[in-house]
């Protein structure tokens, strides 16, 4: 057994537990993850890096702005429910720690157990590796 199959718990049922069986899920979970070693040959996935780049919307571009504008103008507000702030929902939870505002939780995320850099840093580092999707098809190189 590896990753466990879909299991919806009896209670609640609002939490989705998909089994990551598809290629896209597996890519998201493992691509560019894991410790990097000084490999003699590094096998890259053909064409797949592009998918992960496309999934990242570049917020600050005119194209993106126009897409946001179009989506905003398409909205039919009458059909939408009210938007209560998220912390009001969470405030209803009785769990300890749940509704509590802990300062810096997001920045605290930078501290993986290795004490490694933040996700942002990693993304920056990764960009150079993700970009050459075409080159990677039969690339053989030592990462000296």
């Amino acid at each position, binding site marked *: *057994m590896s*990753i466990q199959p879909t299991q919806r*718990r009896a209670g*609640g049922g*609002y*939490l*989705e*537990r*998909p089994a990551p069986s598809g290629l896209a*899920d*597996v890519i998201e*979970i*493992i691509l*560019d*993850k*894991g*410790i*990097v*070693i*000084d*490999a*003699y*040959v*590094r*096998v890259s*996935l053909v064409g*797949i890096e592009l998918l992960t780049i496309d999934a990242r*919307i570049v917020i*600050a571009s005119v194209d993106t*702005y*126009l897409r*946001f*504008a*179009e*989506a*905003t*103008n398409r*909205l039919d*507000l009458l059909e939408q429910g009210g*938007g209560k702030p*998220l912390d009001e*929902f*969470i405030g*209803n*939870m009785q*769990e300890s*720690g*749940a509704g509590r*505002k802990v300062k810096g*939780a*997001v920045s605290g*995320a*930078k501290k*993986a*157990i290795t*004490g490694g850099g933040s996700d942002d840093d990693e993304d920056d580092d990764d960009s150079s590796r993700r970009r050459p999707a075409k080159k*990677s*098809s039969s690339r*053989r*190189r030592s990462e000296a």
Partner: protein
Amino acid sequence: MEVEAGEELTTGWCVYGVVPAHTGRVPNDLTGIDDAPLDLVVHGDIAAVVGEMQLERPPGRRADLMAYSKVVDALADAGPVVPVRFGSVLPDADSIVEAVLAPDEPLFVDLLDQLVGRRQFIVRAAYHDEVALTEIVRSDPGVAALRAHTRDLPEDAAYADRVRLGELVARAMEAKVEVDAEILADAIVPFTAAHRVTLGSGADNLVTVAVLVDDDRREEFEEQLEGLAEAVHERIRLQLIGPSAPYDFVGEA
């Protein structure tokens, strides 16, 4: 530096992960890329899980990725493992010891210690369709005014206004994602041993939180997520993926 593989080298050793040497066994029925049997390269207290791999063929097929994933997750099911990035191939056992195990043995030992009795999960949150946009239009008079001004005009009219509208919405979305992601992370993090937060764009992903959960807190963690999913379900859908190998918590050598 580009290195051409010499003709004499047609196979290499794919390294899947590093495990404690004392666990000493790879599951018998487990095979790797190319259906190759798996082997251990031991050095002191640690061992690399490896499998032979043909080099003279198109690399990086879907099957290779799935095979890698299957091996690393099976190792994680059996005990602590430090996943090695997909597709790392070395020429022989000696080079695995010299280039991988020996130089970073203390790091591997330390990482493996920290991974004992813990599994990784990924929590993914996304707004339901149009929820975030609707909230932004409702709460931001500037956005609402620009929307009212531009929405019934033809595509090519009021270009600057539409760009301005989109920019305001994009900024508001970014701020909203930051606030909501922090609230969600705050609800999750107390139940985890480690976490990494990756903010989404808001459009189809709010936030992804990779977490490392102690086995003896797993039930508590899952119950918390059930409660959280129910509490936020009108605006946000939550997915819990895993357990999987600790891909997000091994840093870089």
